[in-house]
Structure formats: structure tokens, C-alpha cells
């Protein structure tokens, strides 16, 4: 029954100076109330000290100041039905007007297709579908025949999309002038062309920058640093005003092509740096191993280095795609109508001109861009996590 705390041998040594030696363990005390349960959580996470408490209160006040008006504008006071601006004006039955959603519904087709002829819009839908399938094939790490998926994405898809969207009279698709393209279609075409061109070009530039040949290295570095040193707007300006001067007058490219060239060159320089980071992460022994096997430069790169480097680069490629997707908004500068520009135009339409139209349009645009970019960044994070899985597993097995 009685538990002895001090071993008997030592007791005789210590007992001389000790007046009292406890023979039984003290009963376990309950944990302090303030450290457990909801109270403890609140105290630890929200009111740890005076500064923390002040910050918590300020944050709550800030949220209370900013969130109710947004919810009111977007949902509670919002107008959901109507045919023109009358529905979204302040009147006796509607003292406060929030977002004017009928405006978005009315102009929705314009936001998606621009001025693409209504009878031909199925082609745009088919393009979206084709793009979605090809992208899934390329990005889904467990998809079957992924090599074929890459060929599809970088060769078949661009050609098929061009025929589908631009038209070919030989197979009965009437030609649609690129001046009529607009809205989400242009945003997606510009960003997709940007990624399809910039990835191969960026890989070449990155290899060039790491090359041992001085001339190759010099040209690559000059191109990359020049493009990265100037804003996209000036690249687009250059594409817009100088591209027609660079070619014989008969070849003068249309506006969309000019924007595409500018965006593709710009994206390539940034992609080159992303790929270079991936190349640098490959240990030297991989190069040496490939050299020991007698592989040539292109065999080494194609069979050993790039497959590993690109795999670890996928999250960063996705992140630069997100940046590119946001940057496509700047193509308005060369006079083509991307998604944001169509909203800017729709906002100025007298049929819908009300005090809330601008905010509604921007809220819709923000929602669309946010959903796109957020999903892509989540996917990038997931791939990053999955690519780290090999390393994590190794740690466990080494134990």
C-alpha cells in the first residue's frame, strides 16, 4: 500500500538533514480550468496577453465593419430579376440597391464569347471542352498514356483549336475574324498559347543559360534579362507598334497575333527562370551517371535530367500560369477584348448604366478570377505535397 519514494539506501544518507520524508505520492491535481476547454482555447489563441487581446478586438471590429456591407451588397440588397437599368435603380419599393445581377445575366454571353457570331458559338464551347480534356490528361498525374497527353497538348490541341476557332472553309467551318473574338475566349486563348509556347521555349532558354557554350549562354541571358527587366505593357506596346514594322507589309499580323507574340515571348523568359530553378535542383551525380553511360547531351537532358527537373517544377509552372492568367488582362492595350475588358465595356453600356453596375461587374470578374486562380494554386499545392511524398516515405523506411 505505501509507496516508497526515496530508495532505502539513500534515505539513510539524507535522513540526517530531513525532518520529513513523504512516503506516499501526492494525489493528481485536475488541470487548471483556464487552460482547457473552450475557455482555455480562447485564452491561448485569442487573449494570450494584452497585445493579443487588443488585436483580437480590433480584428473583430474590422470584420464587423467590412463583412456586413459586402454580404448586403452581394446578396441581401441585390437585384436578381429585371430587363434593364430600371430594375437596378433606387425606387420607393427598393430604397437600397445592391448588386445588379440581371446585368451580368444579360451580358453573360458577351463576357464569355465576345462578338463571336451566335450561330458559331458551339465551336467555342467545343474548344473549351477540348481544352479541359487535354489539360486534365496532362495535369492528372495518374492518367493513362501521359506522354501521349503531352503530345496532344503541345501539338494536336493547338492545331485543332486553330482550325476550330478560326475556321477552315475546306471542312465547312466558316472563317471567324479574330477581331470578333472576345471575353473569356480571348483570355483563355491568350493564356493557353502563352503556356503552350513558353514551356518549350522556356526549356530551351533555360538549357541555353546553363550551357557551357559562351555564345549560346550570352544570347539566352540577354533575352531573359531583357524581357524580365521591362513591364509586360511595354512588351505589348512593342508587339503592337513594332511587329508590323518588323515584317514585310503583306504579312502584317492582326491584333490578336500581335498580343499572342508579346505574351508568349514575355512568358518564355519567366518560364526559363522557373525551369532553370528545377534544373539546378538536380544533383550533379545525375549528369555524371548519364555521362558514364555514354549518353549524348540531348539524351542526357531528354532521358535523365528534364524528366526529373520538370516533375519537381510542376507546382512552379502552375504558379507562373496563374501569374500569366492574371497578366492576360493587360492585352486590352493592343485593342483586343479579353474578359475584363468586356466587363469594362458592359459597364459603360447605357442600357445598364446605374450607380451599382460598375461594382457588380467587378464583383463578378473578381469571383471568376478568384475561382480560377484559387483552384489552380490549390492544385499546385497538392502536387507539391504529392511530389514530396517520395521523400517522406523514404524517411519512414530509413527508420
Amino acid at each position: 500500500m505505501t509507496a516508497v519514494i526515496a530508495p532505502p539506501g539513500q534515505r539513510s544518507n539524507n535522513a540526517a538533514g530531513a525532518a520529513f520524508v513523504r512516503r506516499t505520492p501526492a494525489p493528481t491535481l485536475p488541470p487548471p480550468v483556464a487552460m482547457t476547454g473552450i475557455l482555455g482555447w480562447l485564452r491561448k489563441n485569442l487573449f494570450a496577453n494584452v497585445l493579443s487581446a487588443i488585436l483580437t478586438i480590433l480584428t473583430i471590429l474590422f470584420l464587423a465593419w467590412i463583412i456586413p456591407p459586402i454580404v448586403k451588397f452581394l446578396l441581401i440588397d441585390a437585384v436578381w430579376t429585371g430587363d434593364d437599368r430600371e430594375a437596378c435603380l433606387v425606387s420607393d419599393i427598393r430604397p437600397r440597391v445592391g448588386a445588379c445581377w440581371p446585368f451580368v445575366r444579360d451580358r453573360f454571353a458577351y463576357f464569355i464569347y465576345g462578338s463571336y457570331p451566335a450561330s458559331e458559338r458551339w465551336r467555342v464551347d467545343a474548344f473549351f471542352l477540348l481544352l479541359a480534356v487535354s489539360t486534365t490528361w496532362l495535369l492528372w498525374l495518374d492518367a493513362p498514356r501521359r506522354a501521349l497527353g503531352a503530345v496532344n497538348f503541345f501539338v494536336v490541341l493547338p492545331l485543332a483549336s486553330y482550325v476550330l476557332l478560326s475556321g477552315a472553309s475546306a471542312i465547312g467551318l466558316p472563317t471567324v475574324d479574330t477581331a470578333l473574338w472576345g471575353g473569356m475566349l480571348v483570355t483563355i486563348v491568350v493564356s493557353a498559347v502563352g503556356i503552350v509556347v513558353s514551356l518549350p521555349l522556356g526549356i530551351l532558354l533555360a538549357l541555353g543559360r546553363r550551357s557551357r557554350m559562351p555564345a549560346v549562354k550570352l544570347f539566352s541571358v540577354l533575352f531573359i534579362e531583357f524581357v524580365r527587366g521591362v513591364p509586360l505593357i511595354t512588351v505589348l506596346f512593342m508587339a503592337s507598334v513594332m511587329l508590323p514594322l518588323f515584317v514585310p507589309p503583306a504579312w502584317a499580323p492582326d491584333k490578336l497575333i500581335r498580343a499572342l507574340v508579346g505574351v508568349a515571348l514575355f512568358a518564355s523568359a519567366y518560364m526559363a527562370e522557373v525551369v532553370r530553378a528545377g534544373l539546378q535542383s538536380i544533383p550533379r551525380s545525375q549528369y555524371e551517371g548519364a555521362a558514364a553511360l555514354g549518353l549524348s547531351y540531348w539524351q542526357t537532358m531528354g532521358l535523365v535530367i528534364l524528366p526529373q527537373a520538370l516533375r519537381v517544377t510542376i507546382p512552379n509552372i502552375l504558379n507562373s500560369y496563374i501569374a500569366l492568367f492574371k497578366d492576360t488582362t493587360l492585352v486590352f492595350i493592343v485593342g483586343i477584348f479579353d474578359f475584363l475588358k468586356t466587363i469594362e465595356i458592359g459597364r459603360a453600356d447605357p442600357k445598364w448604366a446605374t450607380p451599382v453596375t460598375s461594382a457588380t461587374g467587378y464583383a463578378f470578374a473578381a469571383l471568376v478570377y478568384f475561382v480560377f486562380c484559387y483552384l489552380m494554386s490549390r492544385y499546385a499545392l497538392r502536387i507539391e505535397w504529392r511530389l514530396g511524398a517520395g521523400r517522406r516515405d523514404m524517411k519512414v523506411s530509413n527508420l
Partner: protein
Amino acid sequence: MNSTAERRRPPKVSLLYHPTFHSIVYQIALSAFVLFVAYQLIKNVIDNLRSAAIATGFAFWNHTAGFDISQTLIEYAPQVSTYGRAFWVGLLNTLLVAALGIVFATILGFLIGIGRLSRNIMVARLTGGYVEVIRNLPLLLQLYFWYNAVLKALPELANSTVLRGGIVLNNRGLFLPQPMFGEGAGAVLGAGIAAVAIAVALHVVARRRQLRTGRRPPVFALSLLLVVGLPVAAFFAVGVSVNFEYPQAGRFNIRGGIEILPEFMALLFGLVIYTAAFIGEAVRAGIQAVSKGQTEAAYALGLRPGYTLRLVVIPQAMRVIMPPLTNQYLNLTKNSSLAVAIGYPDFVQIFTGSVLNLTGQAVEVVAITMAVYLSISLVTSLVLNLYNARLARPEW
């Protein structure tokens, strides 16, 4: 011995397969290709310019510009000033918004980055949400929002909001009272500059003493006293008359005071809020890169939390933060060219826009534009690399 010597000699390879020969052929071929393309492009440009009868050369620099600019930091008159003058006006406007943007974005970005690591869940979530939302929306959309939905929705001139201190706010901009300094302002300014210089010197001396003896003289209170006290003393000794010129609302415009354009405010707001999200991420990553053992070791040595942060964590975190921070500063400067979209008269809007349209000399104007941005990028990264090298020095 003989056999190893033989083995060391490279095997004889036919010239066709020799790596050095390959490399030289590749480089000659690439250089020839680049030169050929460049030649073709230049030839086409010259032909096209000749057939379109567009003037070439930089003579336009001294021609009268003839267009008005809404914000000029240096003297500019549309009927008298030249395109060259317009160039400087635009460049200064760009540098103004970039410099202010960098200062505010750094402050906000550091607060956001530190907030994300806060043990207070509310603060961590709020700053995390800020970063997620702002980084996933295009900057142009944010600029449009600030300009069209917020600033342009402010009251009209007739119903201007008058804030405390004579500040007037309406949809034409923000109007601040302008201080008009009378006699003796120079003395106060001089005292202020002298106080700051002495405080810096004291700080350097204190730092040296601390490195030598381990003890830091209490110079902080002294420098605070100096920086505040000296100008105030000078003020009372000399006696300065400061008058404020208040903005006066007329029927059609506002006269007097300092006028801040809504375009400028929207651009500054947008750039600061957008860039701060990215700086916040850089700061968070930098602080997280300092291992926890450093903090624990500092506590074990008896350093208080404030000193731990200042002397142990921040110097190490700054080494990680500096490279991405440099990138963000450059991005902010480049992004200021989005001014075109909302009509702030920055360098691109004035020079690459108006001057190019009026002169039609695309090649020269675009070349100058590129040169300007490349110089800004080079100078900024040069300065920050110097600072970075100082940070990286181990004995610092």
C-alpha cells in the same frame, strides 16, 4: 607508369565527333542565325519606315510637345515645353508612385507577414485571407475597382467631404492644405537634419562600444530627445511663421492647397495592397526559415524577446527575405505602368502613349522606353544587391 600515362592521353577522335568542334560549330551557326534574323528585321523596319515616310532619329526630342499633363512635378507648359521635358515629367511621376509604393508596401507587407505567424488565431486567419484574396485577383481589376468603384463614386465637387484640418475629398481628388513657410524655416530644417545626423553617429558609436565591451550605452532616449528637441528648440529660438493655404472650393474647381489626383491615389492603393500580399509571403517564409533553435538559444543566453527578435532572428531572416523583396520592388516599379489603364500620367502613358502617337516614331520611343525600364531595374537591383552583400557578411 607507362600505361597510366597512355591512359591519361585523350583518345583520338575524328573531328566529326569532337566535342569542342561540335560546340564551335553550334555557336557559329546560332550566331549566324541570330545575326541573319536581326538583319532581316532591321532591313524590314527601314523599308517600312521609308515607304510610310516616317521621320527617323531623335530630333523630335526638342520639338514642342503641345499636350497637357495633369500632374507635373517639374515646370511644364504644353505650348512651350518639349517632348524631352514631357519625358522627364513622366519619368518623375513613375518614380514618385514607385517610391511611395515601395515604402508603404514594405510597411504593410511586413505587418502582414508577421501577422500570418501570430499566435493569435484571428490575426493569422485575417492576414492569411488577405494574402489569398489579393494574390488571386489581377492587379488591373483591383486598379479598376479602386478607381471606378471607389474613388469615382465619391461625392461631386459641390458636395465635397470636408475632413478635419481643411482636407477636402471629392471625385476629383484629395486636396490637402499646403504649408507656406515663412522666415526661419531653414533654421528649423537645418536643426532637424543636424539632429538626425548626430543620432546616427551616436548609434554607430554605441554599436561599436557594444561590439567591443558587450555593453550598450543608452543612446536611444538621447537620440529621441535630440531628434524631437533640437528642431523644437530652433523653432522657439528663431520663431517661424507657418501659414496653411487651405483649398478653396470654387464653382468649377478647387484652388489652392496640394492636389492629389484620384488616378494617383487609385494607382498607389492598388500597387501597395497588391505588392504587400507578396511581400508578406516573402517575410513569412524568411522568418520561418530561421530555425527555432536560434530563438531558444537566445532565450537561454538571457536575451529578452525584443532583443532576440532584433539581434538574432531578424538579421538572419533578412538574408532570406532580401532576394524576393528585391524582386517585389522591381515588380511594383514595372507594374506602375498599369497607370495607362486608369489615366495616371506615368512614364508609359506620357511617353510610350502620347509622344508615340504624336510623333509616330515607334522605334525610337519604344527603344527609349525599354532603356529606361532596364536602367531602373539594373540600378534597383544593384543597390539592393550591395545591401544584400552587407547582410550576408558573416561578421556583421
